[in-house]
């Protein structure tokens, strides 16, 4: 399960001889015997602490050729403002932020427009991040609670090949592992354009592993245009210690934000000069969010087995106010009175207020042990996952001018439960071949009470189950090259409010296939793969309703490749390219088989590179520099009606110099000053009350951030 290191490392703890205190710090881990974990080098630079424990770790074996673990050197090469920025370093991932700097990012992953997370399962530090049945969108993921500095690594599991992957792992899963390796106290202050301010404070005890730290962040900005101000404050703390034979990790965090949003603009209005590209039709958009959570991860390991139990609790709150369509009268299903009410409300404006409050309680548990079936390295694992969400949510239309509530379409209480069990086998029938796989059974239950729209408080329930089979064949060709074939079945749960009484929960069934090769040596890692994913049905942004609606089955095929080179400690580079073709498989509801699925870019290319020179001695200290660059190329984004969106090439760069305790850093985002569009949608709107508006669906955009320069002064004490 997601253990110490959140399942990213399969580790075996070997207790050395000697007396132990009942509670002892976990020392920096080594990625292999006698080899320092690169992420812990600063801890070890202060001199080796007394050794009372040696932990031998190895990367978990990959489930597919394109599985990637992005480590700190790559994550820290280019500047990043949020953890969402970090996931853009994962091959095939690109992000947008169409609802303001404080709102959750829109995620695109391998031809999927995951919107805010419906197709990407994300866990951070042992806690699930996807909101079940979020009123704004299924699987909503807000990663602002975690600072980029404390993300130690990201494990990207494209496809659905691992039995640990659960709900929302449609395009794949991203598991973020937390750690901070700068020993002592870190204090930094950042100032930048648009009155941006950021203060960061962290502490990491030098003799402890980087899994133990505490970090605090405060950020505020006026934004690069009207209605773009943001404030957020966040705290993340994690400690890992040994309690007798147990290893315990506790992670707790709290976060709150408030933000404004400029919303969408019609591209034609920008091009005609009718509105400034940084303007807004409705200055009252924005929202707030909070998240408080705790994870307790207890594990016990010996030479042959490992047991883990990790309960978690998450308190979530979100409010969004958005206006995508102005005064457009939108279609509404209901009786005559309801339709009349909805239309009357639309005539006063479609400013939608969405509120989602949830408490999530759950746990993950697993037991793994070696068994001798076909070889001495065979093993099996059984695991369980439980998650229960108590959700209160509403969606209300507000008059644009008076902010008065004019229509309530959702006023619901949802209780969602997802219980799962899986088994996972690893067999080596031949010395060069390892077969991994198993099955996962998820049972999901929902209880819904809705008082919005035409609902009158009726309580209904629905339940369903999904069995997913997984298999990976890993053939060692030799010379560090492995060929992998993978197959997996996954699912996406339905939006709870859409379920009828007694309905067998209609999961979106996912099948993933992949074949490819991996190469790994000390300075170079590379992979290339062909992949295919099919869905029994899909959710695609609909221009008629301006939200995601169910569509016929879809399929995605593509090719991906990544190369990471770190020939020396002072240089790292990573480059990836992903091409995906997403199309409908059946003809239905206005879509024809073969039509491209709109919105997700077909081409995503990403590079990250950092050069860390040493400039010699100054004031008795070594002057160390870092020059980093990250580029993102996004192309061929299909839009409805046979159109394609604008291609984008963005460059972010950083330069810093550090004299042990003091560091000065300059970060530049969108260095080339590209005028670009962050979000692109096609739908109908009417922001001209009473006039003869243009009502035919047309392109709407959210404007991307202009060139932004930030300067940071950091002290390391």
């Amino acid at each position, binding site marked *: 399960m997601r253990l110490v290191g959140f399942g990213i490392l399969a580790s075996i703890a070997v207790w050395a001889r000697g007396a132990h205190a009942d509670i002892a710090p976990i020392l920096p881990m080594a990625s292999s015997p006698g080899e320092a974990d690169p992420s812990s080098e600063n801890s070890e630079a202060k001199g080796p602490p007394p050794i009372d424990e040696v932990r031998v770790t190895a990367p978990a074996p990959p489930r597919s050729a394109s599985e990637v673990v992005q480590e700190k050197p790559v994550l820290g090469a280019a500047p990043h403002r949020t953890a969402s920025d970090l996931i853009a370093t994962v091959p095939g991932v690109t992000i947008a932020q169409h609802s303001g700097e404080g709102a959750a990012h829109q995620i695109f992953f391998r031809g999927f427009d995951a919107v805010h997370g419906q197709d990407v399962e994300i866990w951070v530090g042992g806690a699930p991040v996807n909101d079940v049945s979020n009123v704004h969108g299924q699987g909503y993921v807000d990663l602002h609670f975690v600072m980029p500095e404390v993300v130690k690594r990201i494990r990207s599991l494209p496809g659905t090949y691992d039995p640990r992957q659960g709900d929302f792992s449609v395009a794949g899963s991203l598991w973020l592992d937390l750690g901070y390796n700068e020993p002592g106290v870190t204090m930094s202050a950042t100032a930048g354009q648009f009155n941006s301010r950021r203060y960061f404070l962290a502490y990491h005890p030098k003799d402890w592993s980087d899994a133990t730290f505490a970090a605090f962040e405060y950020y505020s900005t006026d934004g690069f245009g009207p209605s773009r101000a943001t404030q957020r404050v966040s705290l993340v703390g994690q400690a890992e210690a040994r309690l007798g034979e147990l290893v315990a990790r506790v992670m707790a965090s709290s976060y709150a934000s408030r933000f404004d949003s400029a919303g969408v603009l019609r591209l034609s209005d920008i091009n005609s000069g009718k509105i400034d590209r940084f303007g807004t039709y409705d200055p009252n958009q924005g929202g707030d969010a909070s998240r408080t959570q705790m994870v307790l991860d207890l594990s016990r390991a010996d030479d042959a087995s490992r047991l883990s139990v990790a309960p978690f609790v998450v308190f979530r709150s979100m409010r969004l106010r958005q206006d995508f369509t102005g005064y457009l009268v939108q*279609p509404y299903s209901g009786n*005559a009175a309801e339709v009349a009410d909805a239309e009357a409300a639309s005539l006063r404006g479609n400013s939608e207020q969405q509120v989602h409050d949830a408490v999530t309680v759950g746990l993950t548990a697993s037991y793994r042990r070696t068994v001798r079936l076909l070889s001495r390295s065979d093993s099996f694992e059984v695991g369980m996952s439980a998650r229960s969400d108590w959700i209160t949510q509403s969606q209300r239309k507000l008059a644009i001018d008076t902010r008065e509530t004019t229509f309530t379409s959702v006023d619901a209480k949802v209780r969602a439960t997802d219980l799962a069990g899986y088994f996972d086998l690893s067999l080596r029938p031949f010395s060069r071949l390892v077969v991994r796989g198993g099955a996962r059974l998820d049972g999901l239950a929902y209880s819904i009470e809705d008082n919005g729209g035409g609902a009158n408080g009726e309580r209904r329930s629905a339940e369903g189950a999904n069995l997913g089979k997984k298999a990976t064949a890993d053939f060692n060709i030799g010379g560090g090259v492995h060929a992998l074939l993978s197959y997996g079945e996954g699912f996406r749960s339905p939006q709870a409010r859409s379920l009828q009484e007694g309905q067998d929960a209609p999961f979106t069934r996912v099948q993933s296939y992949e074949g490819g090769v991996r190469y790994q040596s000390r300075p170079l890692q590379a992979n290339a793969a*062909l992949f295919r994913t099919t869905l029994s049905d899909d959710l695609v942004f609909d221009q008629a309703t301006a939200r995601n609606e169910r569509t016929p089955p879809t399929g995605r*095929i593509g090719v991906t*490749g990544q190369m990471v080179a770190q020939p020396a400690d002072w240089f790292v580079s990573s480059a990836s390219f992903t091409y995906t073709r997403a199309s409908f498989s059946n003809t239905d509801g206005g879509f024809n088989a073969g039509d*491209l699925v709109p919105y997700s870019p077909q081409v995503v290319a990403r590079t990250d590179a950092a050069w860390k020179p040493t400039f010699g001695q100054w004031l008795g200290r070594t002057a160390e520099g870092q020059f980093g660059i990250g580029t993102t190329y996004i192309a061929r984004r299909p839009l409805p009606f046979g159109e394609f969106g604008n291609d984008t090439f963005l460059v972010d760069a950083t330069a810093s110099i550090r004299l042990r305790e003091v560091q000065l850093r300059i970060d530049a985002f969108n260095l080339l000053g590209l005028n670009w569009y962050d979000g692109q949608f096609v739908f109908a709107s009417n922001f001209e009350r009473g006039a003869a508006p243009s009502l035919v669906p047309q392109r709407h955009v959210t404007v991307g951030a202009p060139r932004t320069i930030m300067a940071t002064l950091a002290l390391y004490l």
Partner: protein
Amino acid sequence: MKLVALAIAASFLFGCGDSTPASTAGKRIVLHTAVVPDASFSAFTTGFGWNVVLTRAAVSAQALYYFDGPPPTAHRSPSRRETIERLFGLGTAWAHPGHYQAGTALGQVILASPVAIDLFAPTALAAGDGVTGTYRSARFSLAQVAPSSAALSGHIALAEGKATKNDGSGAEVYFRLIADYDDLSKSVVNGAVDGCVFDEVDVRGDGTVTVQVKPSVWLNLVDFSAIAPGTEAVPTETKDAGFSQGVTQLSAYRFAYAK
């Protein structure tokens, strides 16, 4: 180059040939617009039993919209898919019958300034834009400001002619019925005549939308007995509630598409 080669290989491996279209559903189209009177527009009998012969008839327009929502008067035959769905209880949930929901706008003509449509000298309007789809209903947006046109004499709608009572009484009325925006606003919001019939058609490309205007509907509720007789040279110019209502009747405008 290697990546391109891999992409090509992927296409073959996964059966992605060249036969599948490389675009999303639908496309944008150009819709030309023609406004024509119905066949018997200049001579008809009203609901009050008056035989009317028109000599002038004009209306001003600001915009035309075409929607996929069925008009409130429609009795559309269900498609084969809908018939099958109904067998399994999966029919589309429409609003209460009689309450019109326009749905998505598929096409439109937005005029830069109000235009006078002279039914005795019909002309083409500016081309409109649209997208492919099934067109079912339309909106005729009357102008809020009268265009400077002799055909309208500064009004939003105008009909002039002679009405003769067909009861043998020989009563004749020479009339000039006019309507301004305020008059029409008693019946419609923002001058929008909603729910007009668009002869249902699956539009797949550029074409021409023909708007058929029916003055007989404009005048159907006019009680000419309440209007001074006037003369042919000096007809009685008046505002009439029946005329204002008639101009805003959705049945006064019918839309059709042809390639």
